[in-house]
C-alpha cells in the first residue's frame, strides 16, 4: 500500500475552516492536513460542501461576492484565506474543472496562453508547452497538430489539455473538481493513470462523487457530510484511503461507502 509507505509532509493544512455564502454556512470547522506529493480525495454526497472546500484552496470563491471564509488554510505555512497575493496563489495552486473548457484557440496556444501573458520568453514558452503536454500524456497524440483548434480534441484529450494548461505555470498543488464526471470510462481511466503519474511531482486534491474513483486513485480520503440540522458541510473522517475503505472509524462513513444511507 502506497499510503502505508509513509506519508509526505503536510502541504496544505486546513485549520478550523468555516465558510459562508451570505448567511448560509456551507462548511463548519473543517480541519485536516493534505500531504505533499500524494493524491487526496474528497468524497461525500451532493451538497456536502466538497466543491466549496476545494475552491477555498485557490480562492476561486472570490468570484462569489457574498462568500466569506473563517479559519486557516496554510499552504507551506502561508495562509491562503487571507493572502493578498491572489495571482501567485493561483499559479501555485492549479485547478482542473469538471468540463475541460478548451480555450478557442490552437492546442499550442491553449498551453502557452498563461505563460505568454506572464511575459515569459518565447523559447521558454515553447519548452514549457512541450513539457506540459508530455507530462499530461498528450504530447504523443497531438505533437503533429499543435496548431489544430483545441476544440477538435476528444473529451478525454481536452481534459488532459486542461491539465497540461494548468501544468504550464508550474503549480505545486493541483485541484481537480470532478475531473472525470463528463468523461466516459475509457477517458476516465486514462486520467486516473495520469494522476498516478503526476503524483510524483505534484500534490493532488480531487473532489469526486464517485467513491470507487476515490478508492482507486487516492492515497488519502476525506469524507464529508452535510450536518442534518445546521445544513452545513462537515468533515466526518480523514484517513489513508485503504483504511477508510476497509475499516472506517465512523459509522456514517461506513454507511456511506457500503451504500447504506439515511
Amino acid at each position, binding site marked *: 500500500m502506497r499510503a502505508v509507505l509513509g506519508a509526505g509532509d503536510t502541504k496544505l493544512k486546513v485549520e478550523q475552516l468555516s465558510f*459562508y455564502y451570505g448567511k448560509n454556512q456551507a462548511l463548519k470547522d473543517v480541519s485536516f492536513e493534505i500531504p505533499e506529493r500524494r493524491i487526496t480525495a474528497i468524497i461525500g454526497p451532493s451538497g456536502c460542501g466538497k466543491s466549496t472546500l476545494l475552491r477555498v484552496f485557490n480562492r476561486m470563491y472570490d468570484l462569489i461576492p457574498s462568500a466569506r*471564509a473563517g479559519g486557516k488554510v496554510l499552504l507551506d505555512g502561508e495562509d491562503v484565506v487571507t493572502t*493578498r497575493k*491572489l495571482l501567485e496563489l493561483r499559479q501555485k495552486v492549479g485547478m482542473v474543472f469538471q468540463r475541460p473548457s478548451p480555450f478557442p484557440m490552437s492546442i499550442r496556444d491553449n498551453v502557452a496562453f498563461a505563460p505568454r501573458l506572464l511575459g515569459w520568453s518565447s523559447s521558454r514558452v515553447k519548452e514549457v508547452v512541450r513539457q506540459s503536454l508530455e507530462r499530461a500524456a498528450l504530447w504523443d497524440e497531438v505533437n503533429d497538430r499543435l496548431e489544430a483548434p483545441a476544440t477538435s480534441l476528444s473529451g478525454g484529450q481536452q481534459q488532459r489539455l486542461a491539465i497540461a494548461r494548468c501544468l504550464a505555470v508550474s503549480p505545486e498543488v493541483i485541484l481537480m473538481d470532478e475531473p472525470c464526471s463528463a468523461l466516459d470510462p475509457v477517458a476516465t481511466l486514462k486520467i486516473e493513470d495520469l494522476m498516478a503519474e503526476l503524483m510524483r511531482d505534484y500534490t493532488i486534491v480531487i473532489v469526486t462523487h464517485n467513491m470507487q474513483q476515490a478508492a482507486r486513485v487516492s492515497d488519502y480520503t476525506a469524507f464529508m457530510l452535510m450536518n442534518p440540522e445546521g445544513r452545513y458541510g462537515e468533515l466526518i473522517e480523514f484517513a489513508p484511503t485503504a483504511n477508510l475503505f476497509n475499516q472506517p472509524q465512523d459509522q456514517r462513513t461506513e454507511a456511506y461507502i457500503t451504500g447504506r444511507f439515511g
Partner: protein
Amino acid sequence: MAAAVESTSAVIPPVRRVPDRFRTVTAAVAAVAPVILIVIVAILYQQAAPSIRHFGLGFLTGTEWNPVTDTFGALPAIFGTLSTALLSLVLAVPVGVAVAVVLAEQGQATLRGILGTGIELLAAIPSVVYGIWALYVLAPWSYQHLELPISDRLGFIGWLSQPGARSLFNASLVLAVMILPTLSAISREVIRAVPRGLKENAVALGATWWETTWRVILPSARAGIFGATILALGRALGETIAVTMVIGNRYAIPPSIFSPAYTLASVIANEFNEATGTLYPAALIELGLVLILVTLLVNIVALLLVRSTSREASRAA
C-alpha cells in the same frame, strides 16, 4: 442551533479581497444605461412641467386638443394608443404562438431555418417601410376586403361601422405584423427553453404531438409567452411612424374601429415640430411622458414574467 450559527457567522469577517479595478471601471461605464433612463424621465418631466402644472390630472381625462385655445386633454390619444395596441395583440398572439410552436420543433432544420429567418426579417424591416407599405398597399386592400364586408354584414354593431382606409383597425393590422416577430421570437425561445425531456417524456407516455404541445409544452411556457405578449404590447404602444401613417390622425375617441383615430406617439410625431408657445410643446412632451411611463410599467412587468419562466425552466432542467 440556528442562533449559534448566526453568532459564529457574525464573528467571521468578510474576506479581505484584492480590489478589482476592472470591475469598478466597467461598472461605471455600464451605469450609462440606467442613468440615461432616469435622465430621460427627469428631463421629459421637467419639459412637461408647464403643462403638468396647468392641467394637473385633468390632462389625462380631457378629450379636447386645441392649440388655439391652449386646451389639451390626452384621453383620445391614450384611448387610441391602448386600443390599437390591444387589437394588434388580439390579431398577433394566436399566430405568433403558432409560429413559435412550429419553429421550436426539432427536425426539418432547413425548412424551419427558412421560416425562422423570414419571421426574424419581419422584425428587421424599418417601421417607416411598413408605414409606406401600409399606407399604399395594406390599408386600401384591408378597406376593400376586410372592413367593407365586415361592416356590411355587422355594421349594426356600432364599433364595426363606418369603414375607412385610414383607421384604427388598419393601424392595428400593421402593428400586428410588426409585433409578430417579437412575439414569436421570444415565445420560441421560451418554448425551446422548455426542457427537451418534458417532450420526450410525454411522447414516451403515448401522448400525441398535439397533446404534448398543448398539455405539456405550452403550459410550461405559459408565463414566458405571457411575458412575450406584454413585451409586444410595449412595442405596440410605442410604435410611432407606421401607425401615424395609417391611423388617420383624428383627435377624438373613434366611434368604430374602422374610424380614424390618434395615438400618443403619432400626435407627437405630427405636431411637435409645429408646436409653439410654452403650453403646447409642454403638453406634447407630457403625452410623451405618459407614453414612456406606461411602456416602462408594461416592460418591467413583462421582463419580470419572462425572467421568472426562464428561471423556472432552468430549475426544471
